[in-house]
């Protein structure tokens, strides 16, 4: 039982850290643009595909080997996807910045549709086996099984999140991004390069998302063009749960969601005496989300908006 407990906790942490990497992208974009970026899930998917492509080029054509190729592929992929993110923002969202809030959101839906279909056409619609970034090593900890992969994912995710923390809180760029998040008009008045800050966010968000995608594909050994949709929705839910716009909130929300999923699957049939099986797991997740929002309408760490501090009179 203890072994199971430990193992499920590690599982939840692993999944949660991947969710967190993606949720951060949602929340950062929301912070600066008040926009739900529906195409963000596709950055996750692109990460895996670009890394796969890079890896096969490195190993196949360049002849690089093993661990080095994996590391290079990982870095190249997340960097490229970051650039793609910036490009997408320029083309599909920037022209809509002064328009209603719905317009860029729906434009991002179009981007999402195009990216998924584009990859389907280029790489084929079927799922593809994805190489493991870590050797298969299992550790037995008090009866539970933990893999090296899980440890690797946790470390990688935490390094990235710590990097983001430093970037946001300790660097000049971070200050600029935070200023723009606080109030775009004021930042503009103060002569801050708002476009630069937005580009930065659209670079860092997809970069983290892509990292999440690579770790995820590596963890499950598979990638598919449609994988962004499901995970994207989950990460978005996590970001909302934690309080969208809040960076710590996104991480917290992601881990809470992962724990709900893992423990929901394990406990639902037991608690309800078999009436509700694991198939109701997503219902449980959404129900908890709804309950949290009823108590805290702006999410766990989100700031409640008062009437006077509202930025937009229209919500959409």
């Amino acid at each position, binding site marked *: 039982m203890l072994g199971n407990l430990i193992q499920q906790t590690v599982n939840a942490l692993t999944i949660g850290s991947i969710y967190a990497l993606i949720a951060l992208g949602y929340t950062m974009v929301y912070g600066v643009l008040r926009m739900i970026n529906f195409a963000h899930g596709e950055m996750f998917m692109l990460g895996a595909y670009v890394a796969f492509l890079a890896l096969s080029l490195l190993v196949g054509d360049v002849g690089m080997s093993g661990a080095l190729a994996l590391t290079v592929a990982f870095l190249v992929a997340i960097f490229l996807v970051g650039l793609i993110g910036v490009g997408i923002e320029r083309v599909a969202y920037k022209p809509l910045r002064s328009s209603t809030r719905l317009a860029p959101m729906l434009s991002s839906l179009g981007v999402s549709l195009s990216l998924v279909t584009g990859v389907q056409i280029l790489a084929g619609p079927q799922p593809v086996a994805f190489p493991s970034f870590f050797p298969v090593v299992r550790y037995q900890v008090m009866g539970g099984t933990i893999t090296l992969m899980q440890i690797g994912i946790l470390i990688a995710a935490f390094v990235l999140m710590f990097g983001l923390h430093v970037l946001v809180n300790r660097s000049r760029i971070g200050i600029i991004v935070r200023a723009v998040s606080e109030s775009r*008009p004021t930042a503009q008045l103060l002569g801050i390069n708002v476009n630069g800050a937005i580009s930065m966010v659209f670079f860092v968000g997809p970069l983290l998302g892509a990292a999440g995608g690579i770790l995820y594909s590596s963890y499950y050994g598979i990638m598919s063009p449609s994988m962004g949709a499901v995970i994207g929705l989950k990460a978005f839910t996590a970001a909302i749960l934690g309080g969208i716009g809040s960076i710590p909130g996104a991480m917290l929300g992601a881990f809470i969601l992962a724990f709900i999923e893992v423990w929901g699957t394990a406990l639902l049939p037991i608690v309800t005496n078999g009436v509700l099986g694991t198939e109701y797991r997503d219902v449980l997740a959404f129900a908890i989300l709804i309950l949290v929002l009823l108590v805290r309408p702006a999410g766990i760490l989100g700031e409640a908006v*008062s*009437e*006077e501090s509202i930025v937009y*009179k*229209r919500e959409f």
Partner: protein
Amino acid sequence: MTLVFQSLRKVYGEVVAIDGVSTDFAPGMIHGVIGPNGAGKSTLINMTAGSYTVSSGSITLDGKRLDKLKKYQIANSGIARTYQNIRLFDQMSAIENLEVCFYPAEVAAAWREVIWPPYANAQRRRRREKCMEILRFFDLQGYADVDAGGLPYGRQRMLEIARALVANPRVLLLDEPAAGLNHHETAELTAKLTALRSPDRIMIVVEHDMDLVMTLCDSIIVMHHGKLLFRGTPSEVQASTDVQLAYLGTANDIDDIRAAAQDRRAQLGIRARRRS
């Protein structure tokens, strides 16, 4: 009977924004609320209108407790307000901004408007005429069918006051109505507000424009650090050293107060114009 505050308090976490204010406002008069930045003037308005909750104490209008009501119920109890940052319904025409105020009285018959066109037309005509009247009072009739968001800033301020008047409220709360207005517009505003004085109506004006407050108001409340510092007629306020201290720390000249207020007004004006 009057609008009464009874040891009103508003607390945000550690910060006490309003600290035990007790006062009352008589109908037929225009009451000014002044005080330096952060004195709690707007908070007072927001609490009265139900935009903010009341931490403790009570607000009653004609003996009826308001502070436990929801915001829309407070509005329907005869309290209307304007906002420091104009909050019109931007994509509705000027006259629609006024017409919608008939909602509380007429929503119960909305279904008749849907199924019976002649009734709907009659209702619409009636509403329109009433609102046109108010628009004319504010010289806005020419803008009736223009989207409120597209009006010049000064007109928006007027339209917001017009909107507050549709339901013929007992209490009219004006939160910095002159903010961002030029001299000409301010004069116009003063004239309109003076004309709105009526024996049944309690008008409360929060304002930084001292000239406006001094000429317009019958009675003035001075707020300082969330407390009621002074209450009196304009001339009493001008004579009070307490008030001068509150505004400027050490100053003793009402002209300095005026200058400080002017500064604040200019800032607000910039902000407000940019928003629009």
